[in-house]
């Protein structure tokens, strides 16, 4: 399990950092913490485009995304 905390960053940095985490740890389930709706949408798009399944939870005004790579 790899955690990516991109709270405090505005678009497109959350996507860039998540993409890097995916490339560095291709087999890992990623937990991504984002602050805004825009980052949540954009990180979800990135994940779906790479075949990850996306689960989202709202935690006190922020979002925790669990991205599971394909075949896992």
């Amino acid at each position: 399990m790899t955690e990516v905390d991109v709270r405090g960053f505005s678009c497109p940095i959350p996507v860039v950092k998540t993409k890097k985490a995916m490339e560095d740890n291709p087999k890992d389930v990623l937990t991504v913490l984002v602050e805004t709706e825009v980052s949540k949408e954009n990180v979800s798009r990135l994940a779906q485009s790479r075949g990850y399944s996306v689960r989202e939870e709202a935690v006190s005004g922020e979002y925790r995304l669990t991205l599971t790579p394909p075949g896992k």
Partner: protein
Amino acid sequence: MGPGDLAQALAGLPLISDPNLIVGIERAEDAGVYKLTDELAIVQTLDFFTPIVDDPYAFGQIAVANALSDVYAMGGQPLTAMNIVCFPQKKMDISILRDILAGGLEKMHEAGVILVGGHSVEDDELKYGISVTGTIHPAKVVLNTGARAGDRLVLTKPLGTGIISTAIKGGMAGEGAVAKITRSMSTLNLKASELMQATGVNACTDVTGFGLLGHAAEMIEGTDVGMVIDSTAVPFFPEAREFAVMGMIPAGLYRNREFRKNMVEVAQEVPQYLADILFDPQTSGGLLISVPEHKASRLLGRLHKAGISEAAIIGEVVSEPKGRIIIR
């Protein structure tokens, strides 16, 4: 600022009306028009923003092309301009400002516009743009309203500059994509405007921050016509698709969609990336022209012949549903 924020700030302000004011701020027009004589009116607009590309010279060119576009969209002829500069003097070398101003001046020369002055302030964040004054015949103002059922909609530049700019900020866009959008954003809408006027059209606006659909919505809001847009006919940069799918979507795009969600209906078969691109905030985008059907192919032919090769007919104006835009 988002489209809704601005409406909120302007609501209820005591505006002064004047019989010579042909276009004021009541409607979302591209520029203000004030009649001086029966033959002559002045057109005024201004625009400035933070850098959209890294190259200062190109940024200057784009900022000027973008500001002049509002005059071209109304069928006016820009004459004079004044620079607007916000510059972080302590953080940045003055040569950067010089390059920006040189780029801006080059575009003004191309447009036949004279720089007559300007104003600069020190600011934490670099911003550049111009205010523009032009002339127009009071009876020949092309408003953004006036589209009639049966008109064809012509868009003169490809979409996607906002998405690609976001990718540039994220360090994801290659040089080719940067060069492509720089060329498009720094292209004046001068020729497109001249050809539109020579052809005779019913309405026009330029596509900028609210995206294609945001500006299309302004053309029909509160009128008795609607629009049908063929998403497969809309020109866009191929890189915009790639980056949209990757999640390189600017926050403004989401705001644009949210603001117009009640006016826009997107068919299910339209892919997500394309629905995104239609709301992508553009810088120095093309003209969106509503032209009578029998003149549409003539206008398109003229645009293509003038080198505006990506211009396309992207849809039509319909009598039903009124005040709505259907995306097929």
